């Protein structure tokens, strides 16, 4: 049986939320894969950056929010610099983290960070870590 999937059917509330938070046009992405090619963190990711955008386009909320990828991305802006369509993927990744964190669920519980790590790392590391990982 032939199934037709149109943008109209798949444009979800989730996608609208991502577009609202990021201010980006998710459909501008034409899947060239340049973001994935240049991503320094891709070896740590379960879903590549360009696949994340594709899944958002298709409204696959669960798969995206349960991925490791959105937490591995450290906003280095390499993909932002290189995207031929001007899509700011760092903003999209941030929106995805925010959608999770705004349910008041920490990705990293501040109390779980061992004391010896707390005394070892510089403040900027700690503050940025908790800004990105805690609700």
């Amino acid at each position, binding site marked *: 049986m032939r199934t037709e999937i149109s943008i109209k059917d798949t444009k979800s509330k989730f996608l609208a939320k991502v577009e609202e938070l*990021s201010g980006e046009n998710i459909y501008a992405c034409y899947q060239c894969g340049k973001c994935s090619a240049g991503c*320094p963190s891709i070896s740590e990711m379960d879903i590549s950056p360009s696949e994340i955008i594709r899944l958002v386009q298709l409204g696959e909320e669960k798969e995206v929010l349960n991925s490791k990828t959105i937490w*591995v991305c450290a906003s*280095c802006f390499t993909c932002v610099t290189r995207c031929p369509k001007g899509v700011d993927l760092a*903003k999209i990744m*941030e929106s995805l983290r*925010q959608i999770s964190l705004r349910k008041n669920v920490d990705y990293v519980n501040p109390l779980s*960070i061992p004391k010896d790590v707390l005394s070892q790392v510089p403040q900027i590391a700690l503050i940025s870590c908790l*800004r990105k990982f805690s609700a």
Partner: protein
Amino acid sequence: MKISYFPGCTLKTMAKNFEDSALASASSLGVEMVELPRWNCCGTVYSLTSDDLIHQLAPIRNLIRVKEQKNTRVVTLCSMCYHTLKRANKMVQEDSEKLDKLNNLMYKEDVKYDGEVEVLHLLEILKNEVGFSQVAKKVKTPLKGLKVAPYYGCLLLRPPEVGLDDSENPTILKNFLESLGAEVIDYPYETECCGSYHTVVNIDLVVERVYDILSSAINQGAEAIVLSCPLCDFNLDNRQKEIKEKFSEFKGIPVFYFTQLLALSLGLKEKACRFDLNFVDPRPLLKSKHLTGGV
């Protein structure tokens, strides 16, 4: 020349070697960096979601302090501070509605912010106002024979609208180091992310990343790394301990803040260079090169 100076948290603690060497070097080049009164945290990471205005308060409040100091320009040293201040500033300059909202939130401030402050990094002052050729003239101890690898990391360069040089092919650190007489090597990792704040919860990720960066530089003949971010510095310098545990053949390499080499070449003493605060002791290397000014 006088300019407001925003230090940020880590310059006052783990990166004293960065601050001390920067202030002393700038002063000897005729640049007086006047620390802002009542500065606060810059936020460290720029808020990337469009509705998260509350996190833009911290950087913008610091720019109000610049106005209170009767200045129109502020200089930073830390790449993360540079990024958050410059980007928040650009955001309010381009969005008057958000600027109004921020001013309303800060109604207790005596001064209103109108986007009139310019955010600069010390490297830009050295390049565009002092001039690298002028720096070269002031060098007393040229870093002759010292092979260095510049490491830009992310936030000095990206995204391009707030970067201080070409995002893909930067030359500012290279030109700066050459003006000090050093030999600058090329390697492909100079703009690659070090893993950043993952160093708190995922040391392995940082160890893998930094091992690649440092090994590449070493293989190209680098004897030292030169950078400008205290978080990159922590990952590239302190984390060498963990790299050695994982990669037994890794021998280690000294990591400098660019201002430490500036201080050394300007003939400033140990109190300004603060090589004692580097994790991998760079003094044996400097001694072997007869660069004993600040040692």
